[in-house]
């Protein structure tokens, strides 16, 4: 269990700058998720922590040690790869023992550790199998087991769930979260899936183009996205962005004109000017016969507990809203939406977010 500090990290591949001057602190025992689209630099960052990639400039500290010059094996980290990277020619037990044997761990200790990991991960019956004889979920657990036996200071996960089917993914999320509670270790988890990030992380680091967009607790990220990028990346279906043609302040709050409609928001009006964009998550845009926004139904997605409505504004802009589970809307219907102004967002010209909700 150690904290991790990244100081002014820079990474260039040739002339291409993958990560530019990034600093980040991760507390001991924290579960941190690097979230971002592919190519945003999150995996590169993780690999630099692991020592699989050299930093071009900057420092990496794990615990009290400065490690950016140390080879991977000496950094006290364990990593679970996207493809699991199990040694195909070794049995499950051998896979887990390999790292320990390499540092000269005593045989009895190795066996004890494997037994313990196998118990935690329910791998007892599989220890003599080779990876080729295992299912995807089992391989995934072996990969985690291989990390556990080393009792590392830091666990690194590189999109470890992306090769699992939806059901298994959901279950493994829970298992990893539980594991974190059991072990209490520092864990860094890379993913492009915001659900994974939201469900597991204590702290999410949203990245884009080699830069950190926002660091924060999951709900904070969701409710108060620092930038338009974060807002668009987090949340499914994605936030609606509507161009604002005009604004006025009403009792200190901003009202914005979208098309022909004036929409009240909960965002404080002070200091906001220039071209703005209104952000409304679908769950804040509810079907309501008395609603202010008129639209025409395009596609109806029935999820059982609720209904997602894809609709078209008179100006031709698509929006996504929600209706109750028994919605009767179908294609071509006229519909009206009401906006929950307490959950609106406004983004200024620089993409910075301003929120109706205040920080807790």
């Amino acid at each position, binding site marked *: 269990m150690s904290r991790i500090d990244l100081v002014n990290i820079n990474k260039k591949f040739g002339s291409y700058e993958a990560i530019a001057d990034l600093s980040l602190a991760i507390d001991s025992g924290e579960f941190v998720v690097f979230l971002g689209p592919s190519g945003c630099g999150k995996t590169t960052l993780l690999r630099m922590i692991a020592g699989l990639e050299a930093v071009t400039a900057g420092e990496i500290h794990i615990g009290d040690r400065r490690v950016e010059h140390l080879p991977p*094996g000496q950094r006290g980290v364990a990593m679970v*790869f*996207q493809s699991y990277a199990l040694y195909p020619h070794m049995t499950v037990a051998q896979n887990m023992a*390999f790292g320990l044997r*390499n540092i000269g761990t005593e045989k009895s200790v190795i066996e004890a550790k494997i037994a313990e990991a196998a118990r935690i991960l329910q791998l007892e019956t599989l220890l003599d199998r080779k990876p080729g004889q295992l299912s995807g979920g089992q391989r995934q657990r072996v990969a985690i087991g291989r990390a556990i036996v*080393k009792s590392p200071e830091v666990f690194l996960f590189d999109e470890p769930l992306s090769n699992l089917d939806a059901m298994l993914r959901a279950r493994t999320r829970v298992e990893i979260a539980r594991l974190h509670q059991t072990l209490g270790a520092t864990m860094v988890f890379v993913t492009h899936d915001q659900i994974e990030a939201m469900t597991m992380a204590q702290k999410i680091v949203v990245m884009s183009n080699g830069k950190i967009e926002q660091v924060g607790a999951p709900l904070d990220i969701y409710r108060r996205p620092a930038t338009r990028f974060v807002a668009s990346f987090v949340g499914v279906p994605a936030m609606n962005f509507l161009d604002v043609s005009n604004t006025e302040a009403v009792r200190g709050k901003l009202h914005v004109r979208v098309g022909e409609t004036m929409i009240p928001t909960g965002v404080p009006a002070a200091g906001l000017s220039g071209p703005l964009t209104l952000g409304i998550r679908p769950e804040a845009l509810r079907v309501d016969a008395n609603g202010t926004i008129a639209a025409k139904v395009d596609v109806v997605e029935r999820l059982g507990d609720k209904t997602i409505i894809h609709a078209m504004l008179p100006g031709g802009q698509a929006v996504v809203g929600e209706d109750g589970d028994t919605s009767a809307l179908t294609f071509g219907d006229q519909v009206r939406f009401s906006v929950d102004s307490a959950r609106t967002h406004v983004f200024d010209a620089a993409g910075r977010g301003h929120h109706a909700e205040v920080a807790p």
Partner: protein
Amino acid sequence: MATAGKTVGMPLGERLALIAVILLAILWLLPLVWVTGVSLKNNTELVVNPGAVFSAPYTIQNYIDLTKTSALGTWFRNSLIVSLSHTVLVLIVSCLAGYGFARIEFPGRNAVFIFSLVGLAIPGQAIIVPLHSFFNAFDLHNTYAALIIPGIATPFGIFLMTAYFRAIPAEIEEAARLDNASRFKIFWAIALPLAVPAMATLGIFTFLGTWNDYLWPLISATRPEMYTLTVGLAATQTNIDQSEGLGYLMAQSVFAGLPMLILYIFFQKYVVRAVAGAAIR
């Protein structure tokens, strides 16, 4: 398998092709049968009567004679030593270098790699004269070393192994690095076991090539006790024009060919897979 096991209701063209192949197979088999027949005939009878092989009496005298002359056994042993050692060394050198080219990011790697592949264009036959002088200078002819060493550094082997090591997912190796494995440990414990199919291909090609090599042992091994099987058998062939001991010669060829055939029949699954492996990449 597109046409798995459907012989019934086969179209005419396919049927003709099948018949052609069966005829070819008979043509392929005939020389072997005939040679076996000749090896079972009395030598004098063969000189006098051209068609002797088609009628009794048959005898195994030639094979008995064969066991009395020990040279064939020596040549066989030499071939085995040379082919096995050469193959093992080719595998060691090619695997090491192939791994090096695939995974170690030293500066100038690509240039050195291309430099190494230039040798693909040098036919072994084109350098026998200087190679002979070279081994001469070190007094190495008529030694196993001379028979084994040339061709250990084979650009083909480097090409094959490098390609194969490159195809092994980098993540597996990275996992090993995180597991505190040294570079050599990674090579030995991780990469090498995973490269066994490519090693089989290279090994079988190399073994067959060395076993069948004729020109180099012909000029390097000049003492009968250093002959390999190919050279030894070649030496005895000069008698065939006199057809003196034709049956004996053929018994020799049967005797010398049999071990490889048996070995092949036992391991053919691997041999064929290995050879095919070279083509698919």
